[in-house]
């Protein structure tokens, strides 16, 4: 074991952009892909990391002076900049726990299917970053690989069950036949969304109101596009920081550029992971040829639905407002604002498209997200610095709303951190 760990530690010492091609090549071979294909895939993942880091540093260089100026000018409290889920994914895929946690997640899925504990066959490898993030964080805070792996097993077992329970609504309302959504960011909120909806069913005054989402997308859709949103928020921040007109415009265009370029870089990383995803899919499907299973996919499939997209758009201004009025919130919402539809699916699915219910439940969800992202900021900043993000000097921290949206994984994180002395 110690030889293996020494070897792994050496590879990790080479940095994430060298380590990941090696890890992905090995995982590709484990899932019976060809060496050349696996290696190229691994290289793409490494390139994706370099791209993500470039853009995140670009964003941080631009935003750092802005937040520092705002802190000086108005004793500004929102010092943890939301730099987007790509930063969480990069940290998650970039620590030594990756191969162990990856295999553990697949094993959890196979065992649960074999014992009939779940019908969801999860081939959504990209979103493995969500349990991986907590595993990486726990590994860094506790130093225990067992705890890191255990957290992912617990987090994924929960989401497989949730994906099963919500599959009927996913099929009937979103029209995703035979598909379930084992993505923690999305389906984790079902635990809150359904009871809240039942409560609202019994609330006088609200019980009978039903708002629809017609036309919202047409009217405000443009502002939900990253390019416009980035420009507007960037200009707003530059103006609030008291910059000159030229600098304000520069901040606007740079933020817009970061919001457009970051997903492109993440797409490179995803392209590499596709090979592993296909291998894992074949591997799983061969083992359970005769079972009727739901295919677990990315909830990106569901966010095109008009009422999910519309609610996500309306939640952008609400989230910005919440960030300013919530006492103790540190998060300055930015890069993940365009991903709000992911967190909103189970705000509106239980009521089957009632916008009023969606707004009420969505607001509660975002309050939780903002506080959890605030809580996660010191941890994310520490992890990011280890990753080579140039977190600006001064008061600034980094975080992202995506890690805050994985709410129950923080409960698991907290419990396991308390228990870490036992291992």
């Amino acid at each position, binding site marked *: 074991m110690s030889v293996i760990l020494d070897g792994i530690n050496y590879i990790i010492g080479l940095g994430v952009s060298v380590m990941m091609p090696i890890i992905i090549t090995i995982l590709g071979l484990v899932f019976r892909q060809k060496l050349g294909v696996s290696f190229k895939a691994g290289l793409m993942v490494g390139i994706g990391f370099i791209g993500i880091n470039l853009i995140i540093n670009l964003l941080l260089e631009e935003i750092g002076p802005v937040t520092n100026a705002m802190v000086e000018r108005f004793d500004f409290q929102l010092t943890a900049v939301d730099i987007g889920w790509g930063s969480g994914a990069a940290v998650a895929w970039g620590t030594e726990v990756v191969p162990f946690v990856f295999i553990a997640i697949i094993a959890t899925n196979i065992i649960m299917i074999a014992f009939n504990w779940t019908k969801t066959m999860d081939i*959504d490898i*990209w*979103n493995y970053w969500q349990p991986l993030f907590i595993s990486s964080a726990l590994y860094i805070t506790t130093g225990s690989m067992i705890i890191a792996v255990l957290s992912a097993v617990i987090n994924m077992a929960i989401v497989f069950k949730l994906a099963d329970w919500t599959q009927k609504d996913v099929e009937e309302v*979103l*029209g*995703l*036949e*035979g*598909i379930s959504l084992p993505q923690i960011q999305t389906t984790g909120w079902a635990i809150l969304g359904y009871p809240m909806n039942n409560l609202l069913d019994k609330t006088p005054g609200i019980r009978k109101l039903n708002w629809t989402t017609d036309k919202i*997308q*047409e009217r405000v*859709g443009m502002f*939900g*596009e990253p390019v416009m949103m980035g420009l507007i928020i960037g200009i707003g921040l530059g103006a609030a920081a008291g910059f000159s007109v030229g600098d304000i415009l520069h901040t606007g265009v740079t933020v817009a550029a970061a919001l457009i370029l970051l*997903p492109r870089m*993440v*797409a490179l990383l*995803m*392209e590499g992971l*596709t090979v592993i*995803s*296909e291998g894992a*899919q074949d591997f799983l*499907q061969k083992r359970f040829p005769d079972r009727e299973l739901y*295919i677990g*996919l*990315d*909830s*990106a*499939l*569901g*966010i*095109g*639905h*008009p009422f999910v*997209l519309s609610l996500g758009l309306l939640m952008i201004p609400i989230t910005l407002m919440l960030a300013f009025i919530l006492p103790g919130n540190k998060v300055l919402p930015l890069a993940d604002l365009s*991903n709000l*539809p*992911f967190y909103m699916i189970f705000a509106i699915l239980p009521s089957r498209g009632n916008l009023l219910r969606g707004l009420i439940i969505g607001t509660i969800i975002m309050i939780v997200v903002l506080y959890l992202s605030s809580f996660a900021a010191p941890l994310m900043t520490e992890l990011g610095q280890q990753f080579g993000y140039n977190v600006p000097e001064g008061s600034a921290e980094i975080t992202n709303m995506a890690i805050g949206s994985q709410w129950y994984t923080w409960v698991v994180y907290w419990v396991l951190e308390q228990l870490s002395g036992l291992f």
Partner: protein
Amino acid sequence: MQKSIYVCCGTGIATSTVIAKKVGQALKDNGIQHKISQGTVANAPTFVQTNKPDAIVSSADVNGNVGETPVISGRPFLTGIKKNEAIDELLNALK
């Protein structure tokens, strides 16, 4: 003649990458010259206006105005279920 196809999903990142790869393979197997663009489902109407693709393959529901452009579900390319039917549908749309 080269055919233009817009492949999209909710984010234009994950599932559309897989679909684009498989659609490209299927078209290559059928000897059809093509150019695939990838993007978000929300951006589909804008893309149709500016680039006039011959078909859209989407993993999410396309509910904006895309005119007469044929829309093919991209889910079969992800799950492998009824994939051949989806390929046939795409080939017909491109005729």
